[in-house]
């Protein structure tokens, strides 16, 4: 007998004392297809404008810095400003996301852009988020050639662009959007919730930023 059969068999025998296997299977199918939401905290149930404000407040509480711009055209300058203000090199890597690739980069000062995943040599990475969660100031990013996951973790500085309309109150709203986009029961290889820059409290429980992931996380919210 394989270990699989032994383990499942043992559980099965015990559970059969209380219910029939077919009833269990039905209960499971029902929950998986209905995916009930549970309790959504009141703080996450707001109108769009209040959500956006909450997102920014919550993100800043965990050391994310925020800049709001009126349109995508303002993104290159916002990034150039940030790099200059923080004495960072005028260059970064990013994926093939068209919303980023098609920006008027020539309008900002000369920025050297590398397209593709990060190999660990890039000081700065730029990504486009799938959405944001106001409840905790969290960004949601999905893997793929548009926004390779290595960019979220290897560079010391991570700049993330997010559209204001993609910011929702709670995690559950973004799951619904992902189900629509990728199909039910399916997800892209990696979904990252990111809430602030990397940190560790492992030395005497003192929190320090920049453990293995980025030391700084800068978010540009585009009013779109």
């Amino acid at each position, binding site marked *: 007998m394989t270990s699989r059969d032994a*383990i*499942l068999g*043992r*559980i099965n025998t*015990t*559970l059969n*004392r*209380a*219910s029939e*296997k077919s009833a*269990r*299977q039905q*209960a*499971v199918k029902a*929950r*998986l297809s209905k*995916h*009930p939401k*549970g*309790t959504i*905290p*009141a703080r996450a149930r707001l109108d769009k404008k209040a959500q956006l404000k909450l997102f920014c407040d*919550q993100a800043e509480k965990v050391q994310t810095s925020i800049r709001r711009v009126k349109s995508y055209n303002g993104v290159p300058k916002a990034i150039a400003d940030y790099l200059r203000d923080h004495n960072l090199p005028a260059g970064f890597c990013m*994926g093939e996301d068209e919303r980023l690739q098609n920006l008027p980069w020539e309008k900002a000062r000369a920025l050297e852009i590398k397209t*593709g*995943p990060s190999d*660990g040599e890039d000081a700065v990475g730029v990504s486009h988020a799938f959405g944001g969660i106001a*409840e*905790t100031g969290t960004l949601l990013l999905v*893997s793929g050639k548009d926004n*390779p*996951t*290595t960019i979220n*973790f*290897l560079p010391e500085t991570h700049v993330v662009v997010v559209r204001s309309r993609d910011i929702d109150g*709670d*995690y559950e709203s973004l*799951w619904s959007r992902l189900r629509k986009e990728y199909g039910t029961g399916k*997800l892209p*290889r*990696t*979904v*990252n*919730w*990111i*809430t*602030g*820059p*990397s940190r*560790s*409290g*492992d*030395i*005497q*429980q003192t929190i*320090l930023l*920049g*453990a*293995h*992931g980025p030391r700084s996380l800068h978010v540009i919210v585009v009013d779109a």
Partner: protein
Amino acid sequence: MTNIITTRDFKSNAKEALANKTLQKALTHVEAGFIGKRRLAMEALPEFDQLRDNARDIKNHTLANLDAYLEEYEEKVVASGGKVHWAADGEEACNQILDICRNVGARTVTKGKSMIAEEIGINDFLEKNDIEPVETDLGEYIIQLRGETPSHIIAPAVHVLKEQVEEDFRRVHDHLPVSRNLEEPESLLDEARKVLRAKFLNADVGITGANFLIAETGTSVIVTNEGNGDLTQIVPKVHIVLASIEKVTPTLDDVSQILRVLARSATGQEISVYTTFSTGPKRQGDVDGPEEYHVIILDNGRSNMIGSEFQDMLRCIRCGSCMNHCPVYHAVGGHAYGWVYPGPMGAVLTPSLMGVKDGGQLPNASTFCGRCEAVCPMRIPLPKMMRHWREREFEKHLNPASQRWGLNFWAFFAKRPRLYHLATSLGIPLLSLFGRRKGYFKYLPLASGWTKYRDLPAPETRTFQQQWAQREALKQGGAK
């Protein structure tokens, strides 16, 4: 590595821990670092208790349908291109991991923090087979350098002072200049970051644990603050997930309910910095991510807990809150518990996984103050289950003769109320008389196990029962 199991020696371990000054200093960070932050996070979310109920119900529902959920989960992993391996025990899991590593000719393996990896002793096993395991969580890295096991499930190096970390770094990172300054925690973190960065980029296989396995999508979830778990699984060619059967959870929405209580209970954060959902290997067109994705589903005694009085323990999400609030843990730290799971959750889980013969000492390490149950986000009745284990230990005649004799002696009186009253009403005023001057005892014959480490408060002049009778009488009088 010192993976020697000393659960049977809890008493002597505890004695040593109490006398260890460095440890006692380090342990002050537990109370300071966790308790207040958890309270603030909890107070900032009015729905916290409702979410705890939901979290408990979700896990109870899952455990009641566990076979069906595991099958659904497996199907989804396979559909997304991953592979599932079932392991009955630690040895089988270790061998499965070794096979996967050998298949790709792996020399180094990076590891995210995983308690199950500690449970099965994978590091020792890989080393013996000429594969270098590298812990990447800062706390785990520190204890790996020291050849120790974790002393806390979410803060593995909580027993280590920063001066000790400096010593270890100087000893192991001997390629770096001796004159460098490592006084501040920042410089220690920086050094670890640089050293480990090279390891991340060169590893052949990455092993992570899983906080959850999601049946809806075949996804494994890790929760970290450092980002080490992500670099572990995104850079190497192969990602191995090591998880136990009870980690399966129905849906993305269910996981989100539980995540709302996890970080708040653990570190007092509203949510951890990184919550990562991984499904299968990289997809066609992806430019990074692992080519292979394996999940090892470990049983190691857990399926026997289903349907037993210890089933509720399988709801545990390893937040560490019970030990953060445990007076026994505060006093002796995690190593005294002798294996990988310390504190109240360890006192219940260890005998379940190892048997009462080896783990039976641990459920005695409790004052039954009830704080663990009060703070457990999954509402696990830890004290009740510790009592179950004590009963079993007693039934099996596993506790020491002096303890049995003492309990029998007490039982003799307790079953004879008149004698009991007589004995206590004679004894208590005596104690009170002797202790009256200072209000406590520094030493008491037959109670040195207590008085050696703390003073025993001198009792009131009357017994509890006498006081209670008087109180009730007064109340009755007042009600009239």
